[in-house]
């Protein structure tokens, strides 16, 4: 059982009011939150400081226009936040932020992190669909029932880490039938408790990992198996990898939106891998034909060696791919396997070093001696 606050309001409204009161009383100076851009479905993350402007905030809107962990790192790259700021992040976005903080690309200080038990986000493509509102209400119905909603990202459909880590406050959403009647905020840290004193609700003690949550976890694990098998690369290896990535335009959008790919100049955008006349001649002579621009698989596999071990499976990469390559599924699969080998949970603990940057003398002792 965990400490919680129960507010007798619709969940999104309760959270909204709670944050607004923090802002009104200047307990926090700003809120990092999703905001509606206009009448269409477009949303973007915004740092809101004006309580009036805060009315446009939609804290639990089921879209991820950018991975907010990346946006927060953008904000704190050159220093920590000087004043307290509340940030509403999805569990994978917190994990992304932790991974970035680890790489000295951001700073955790002065953030009140609020998250939710996450039902996933809808794909970006659905933003321009005419019946988007209907889709969103269907989404919330499925969250209440702790179901997997078909229009959410593939990466969300098989995400088993939808209970947030490192959040000060967790909003109960998955499997909560009375989402429209009450707002339940779990207080995970003393910091969360302190801020929650401003919430006009009653203190209760509740279970965060309800039966429904466990059910969803199981469902998603099963789906994961299914999807991974669909993106089948086991039997035929190289050929099927070539085919999966065949439509790639080389736009590198996947790397651009990836929170872990933080490099300012990516190796694969640099000159090192470009053809010169000699290289072209020898490859052409040998093969009788070349795909150009070349280096398509080298980019994807190379990027994988760089970031897959820290892949937090947010699914941004698949969502921005203009040619529908299931990037997230392949990377998530590779990532899970690497994380097991190195006994690493990305985004769990900012103090834990990245596997590529550390070693133990006694590990893998049998390797290299054969």
């Amino acid at each position: 059982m965990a400490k919680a606050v129960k507010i007798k309001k619709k969940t999104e409204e309760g959270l909204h009011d709670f944050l607004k009161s923090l802002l009104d009383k200047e307990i926090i100076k700003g809120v990092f939150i999703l905001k509606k851009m206009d009448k269409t479905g477009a949303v973007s993350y915004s740092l809101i400081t004006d309580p009036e402007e805060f009315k446009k905030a939609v804290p639990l809107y089921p879209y991820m226009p950018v991975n907010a962990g990346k946006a927060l790192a953008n904000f704190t790259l050159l220093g920590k936040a000087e004043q307290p700021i509340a940030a509403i992040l999805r569990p994978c976005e917190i994990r992304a932020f932790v991974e970035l903080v680890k790489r000295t690309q951001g700073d955790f200080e002065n953030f009140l992190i609020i998250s939710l038990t996450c039902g996933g986000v809808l794909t970006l493509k659905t933003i321009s669909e005419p019946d988007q509102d209907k889709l969103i209400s269907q989404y919330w119905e499925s969250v209440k029932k702790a179901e997997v909603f078909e229009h959410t990202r593939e990466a969300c459909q098989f995400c088993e880490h939808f209970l947030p880590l490192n959040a000060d406050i967790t909003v109960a959403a998955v499997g909560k039938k009375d989402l429209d009647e009450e707002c339940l905020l779990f207080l995970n840290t003393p910091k969360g408790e302190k801020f929650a004193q401003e919430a006009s609700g009653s203190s209760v003690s509740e279970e965060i990992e309800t039966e429904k949550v466990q059910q969803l976890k199981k469902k998603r694990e099963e789906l994961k198996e299914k999807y991974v098998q669909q993106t089948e690369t086991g039997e035929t290896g190289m050929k099927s990898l070539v085919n999966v990535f065949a439509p790639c335009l080389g736009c590198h959008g996947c790397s651009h939106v990836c929170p872990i790919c933080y490099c300012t100049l990516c190796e694969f955008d640099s000159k090192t891998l470009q053809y010169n006349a000699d290289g072209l001649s020898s490859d052409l002579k040998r093969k009788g034909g070349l795909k150009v621009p070349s280096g398509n698989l080298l980019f994807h596999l190379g990027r994988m060696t760089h970031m897959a071990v820290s892949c937090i499976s947010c699914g941004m990469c698949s969502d921005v791919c203009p040619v529908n390559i299931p990037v997230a599924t392949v990377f998530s699969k590779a990532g899970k396997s690497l994380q097991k080998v190195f006994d690493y949970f990305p985004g769990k603990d900012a103090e834990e070093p990245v596997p590529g940057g550390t070693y133990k003398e006694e590990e893998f002792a049998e390797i290299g001696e054969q």
Partner: protein
Amino acid sequence: MNSKYKPNIIAFLCNWCSYTGADLAGTARMKIPSSIKTIRVMCSGRIDALFVLKAFLKGADGVMMMGCHPGDCHYQKGNYNTRRRYVLLDNLFKTLGLEKKRIGLWWVSASEANRYAKVTNEYTEEIKKLGPNPTSEEIFL
């Protein structure tokens, strides 16, 4: 595969142990297969995962990473990083269904000329059994 098939193997050798070991093997007139093409790096820790991937995707039939035995690194700890990098590559190959045997890691010290000759010969035989790397003919990479 016919017996005349000569594989194309890229070997990355660290300057202080493996390269010296290979040198000793040469001086001692040990038989080293001509399929091995050596590239010297200062430390096996310099072997970027991309070097290996690039060699593999450009059609090398095998890629060998070689360095000092753990604890013997000239730079104290470079080879521990190499080992992790190899584990990473090995695991990626396994997960993606690529031919794992096309990459490998061996520790060869400066005095182990015998071992250098042994592992290069063994690996060449192994690759011969495996046949040419399909990436060498794949156009749509």
